[in-house]
């Protein structure tokens, strides 16, 4: 009994930290751009394939593959934001356009991975290797080392981002833009630049979490959607625009998911997250910490 509870607590926490990482990326982007980016999940997916490409085909080392992939996805995100997402005349149009872009990414990857144009690659389903092998025991619970490192890296990235936002001029500019585009531009801050930088940050955050989580999951072009769903669920439940809320909601969802995986039925995991999201949207659309929805 005790071991079960400990498993639940430890694994839930481990998962929660990583959830915080990728949902904060999504949340930041929403806060600054005012737009929900429908391609976020696709970017998450693209990182995995990039790592696979660099590591498996180009035979680069693990670290090099990861760093290159992060750079790659950051570039994609940057270009997407500059040339695609910003073309939407309203937040709705932008969401629409980014969703279309997500499909383009998905089908591009699908085509490159396996098609009559690239027949050989069909034999090798994509995967992201386990970078750090072995496991350690935390409070008597066996946790994969990779997840432990993932948590450490996540914390480092989150703290760095937080420092960036609160201490540097760029960061303060970003925060100003997230509060009021008009006011920010009146004092000389360029909202577009802030949005572009934020999209780079968000891509790196999504990519980092993706790299660590993907080793223990299947990788296919459609995984982006469940990630987008999860990030959206977390951000909405925590409250759009509230960074604290995102943290809280990340852990709530991580614990729920762990509980279902451990004690109920793994198949229900996605369904429960979605159901919870729908319930929250009905009862309290602004989430736990969010401001009133106008």
């Amino acid at each position, binding site marked *: 009994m005790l071991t079960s509870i400990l498993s639940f607590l430890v694994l839930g926490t481990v998962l929660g930290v990583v959830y915080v990482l990728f949902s904060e990326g999504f949340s930041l982007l929403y806060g600054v751009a005012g737009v*929900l980016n429908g391609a976020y999940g696709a970017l998450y997916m693209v990182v995995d394939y990039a790592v696979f490409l660099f590591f498996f085909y180009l035979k680069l080392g693990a670290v090099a593959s990861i760093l290159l992939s992060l750079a790659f996805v950051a570039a994609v995100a940057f270009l997407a934001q500059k040339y*695609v997402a910003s*073309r939407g*005349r309203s*937040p*709705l*149009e932008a*969401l*629409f*356009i980014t*969703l*279309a*872009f997500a*499909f*383009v990414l*998905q*089908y*591009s990857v*699908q*085509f490159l991975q396996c*098609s*009559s*144009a690239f027949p050989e690659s069909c034999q090798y389903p994509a995967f992201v290797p386990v970078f750090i092998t072995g496991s350690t025991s935390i409070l008597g619970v066996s946790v994969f080392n990779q997840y432990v490192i993932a948590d450490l890296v996540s914390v480092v990235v989150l703290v760095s981002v937080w420092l960036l936002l609160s201490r540097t001029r760029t960061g303060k500019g970003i925060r100003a833009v997230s509060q009021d585009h008009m006011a920010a531009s009146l004092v000389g801050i360029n909202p577009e630049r802030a949005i572009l930088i934020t999209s780079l940050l968000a891509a790196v955050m999504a990519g980092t979490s993706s790299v660590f989580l993907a080793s223990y999951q299947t990788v296919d072009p*459609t995984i982006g*959607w469940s990630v987008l*769903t999860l990030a*959206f669920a977390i951000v*909405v439940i925590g409250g759009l625009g509230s960074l604290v809320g995102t943290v809280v909601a990340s852990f709530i969802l991580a614990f729920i998911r762990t509980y279902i995986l451990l004690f109920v*039925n793994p*198949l*229900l995991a*996605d*369904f429960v997250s*979605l*159901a919870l*999201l*729908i319930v929250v*949207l*009905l009862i309290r*659309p602004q989430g736990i910490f969010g401001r009133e929805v106008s």
Partner: protein
Amino acid sequence: MSHLIRGIKFRTSSFYVIIASIALLVAVEVLTTNPFVVGVFTLIAVYGVLALSWDVLSGLTGYLNFGLAFPFGVGGYLAALASTRVGLGPAESILLAGAGAIGFGFIAGATSLRLRGHFFIMVTLLIPLATADFLNYALVQDGSIFGVNSLVNDTAYVYNAAVAILAASAVLFYMVAYSRLGLIFRSIRENEVAAEALGINTAKYKMLAFSLSNFFAGMIGAVYVFSNGVASPTDFGLLFSALPVFMCALGGMGTIVGPIIGTILLEGSIDFLRINYIQDARLLIASLLLLLVLLFFPKGIWGYIKRGES
């Protein structure tokens, strides 16, 4: 409510194109028995109905429904159940599927229509995905219903049913869109608060649009299941939610003609472009096409053609 479907002009280019498309679909059946061609046009009819259903709700009221797979899948499963467990004939099953889709749609709509903007998009997107997950878990045999065999070999019946549903929905939706009711729907898209201030019960009209959309989506979902012989969770898949949206955006949202044009172009190219390397890239080409249209022709093809008029 009948006083709202008044004052409709039928001598418009839009209506002529609709009639021409229906005529085309009928002609195909008369002119050829090539199963491949009939199969493609069946798919065109299926996606056409979905696109039309999307347009009458989202194109007109502005509530962008990304979950059309839900009534589609529900209709399919209801028809499968009716056919295999209760022994209803295909026609009755199809109608039942439509009615059932409205019913289930009430639940989905009552919850989601209260939300605005991106919340509505995301919730509607998620409902069919959640349903598919649930079915995978709840039903044995991978969540599917097998043995829906009454029409599997009767491609003629399937095609006729699909075209009939397409014709009915196209004409009905045209009448809705270009009548006073259509004006009310469009006022919801333009400025919902102002519409309320003028005494328009927007909740009621949103549910009406939603129900119209669901009825036909459910029926065509039933036809789809009959043609496959199986109802499976993939019927709730993203493809059935997203492709119709693509087709409307391509053809022109809110015009009723747009979806038909978009469907013929998109589905036609997906299926007929069987040149070697292009074949597997079909979906990629389709989504690129969509992206380009969204970026450069926000009003779609028909919208671009008609851009001079008010």
